[in-house]
């Protein structure tokens, strides 16, 4: 028999077939399985003598999805990531999560609000805050008495 006509009552029949074929879609991959998942929303604050540098993983977000504000030595990041099937596509596997977040960081030292830069590069946000002069280490000359 070439066709079973009752198949046509189920518009998803072609797709079910595809899902069956995708059951073994993810192949366990050596070390990766042991070391775990990459994490969403990882962020890190680094302090050097001259500046504070905040980095955050935000894959799939554009400048327009993101807001960075600085007020009273609190740096706040907020943003929204939308994920979903592009127009005309059906979803089979969805691990990437949509999220909306607001996260505040109390800065450990005073910064110069005029010297702040924020850059998104390859899904990583880097915010550089220049320390206020009084917050930087300074060399004190020792004079002989």
């Amino acid at each position, binding site marked *: 028999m070439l066709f079973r006509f009752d198949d046509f009552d189920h518009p998803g029949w*072609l*797709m079910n077939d*595809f899902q069956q*074929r*995708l059951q*073994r*879609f*993810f*192949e*366990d*991959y*050596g*070390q*990766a*399985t*042991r*070391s*775990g*998942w*990459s994490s*969403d929303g990882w962020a890190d604050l*680094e302090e050097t003598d001259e500046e504070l540098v905040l*980095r955050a*993983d*935000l*894959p*799939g*977000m*554009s400048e327009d999805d993101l807001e960075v504000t600085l007020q009273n030595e609190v740096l706040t990041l907020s943003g929204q990531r939308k*994920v979903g*099937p*592009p127009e*005309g*596509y*059906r*979803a*089979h*596997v*969805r*691990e*990437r*999560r949509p999220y909306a977040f607001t996260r505040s960081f109390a800065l450990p030292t005073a910064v110069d609000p005029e010297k702040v830069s924020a850059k*998104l590069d*390859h*899904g*990583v946000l880097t915010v550089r805050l220049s320390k206020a002069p009084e917050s930087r280490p300074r060399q004190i000359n020792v004079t002989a008495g």
Partner: protein
Amino acid sequence: MSDKELQERGGEVTRPRAIRTLRPHVDAYENDDGLLLLADLPGVTSEDLDLEFDNGLLTLTGVRHLRDDTTVEYARRFNLPRDLDPDGVTARLEQGVLRVEIPRAEAYKPRRIQVQSA
């Protein structure tokens, strides 16, 4: 010999850089034309990304260099359904997300069949 002794004798102490391997999150979407994969790979540039297809397996490896000289490797491997055409794979990195499009082989694309009247 301890590190200190080695250094005192003019030797250089080198250690293997820490490498962690992580599984990136992946979405798989499908339409009549083929399969679309999206993988979160923050911090990975195209020079450090490797996509390989062999014997029905698509292997994705991306290396990320962190500021403290450590390295993170993102790795994932996929069994592709047979009706996809691996020769037509295209891949693009955008905002830290890898987009891989794999077309369905022509023979498997749905097609309309003209019914002729007698």
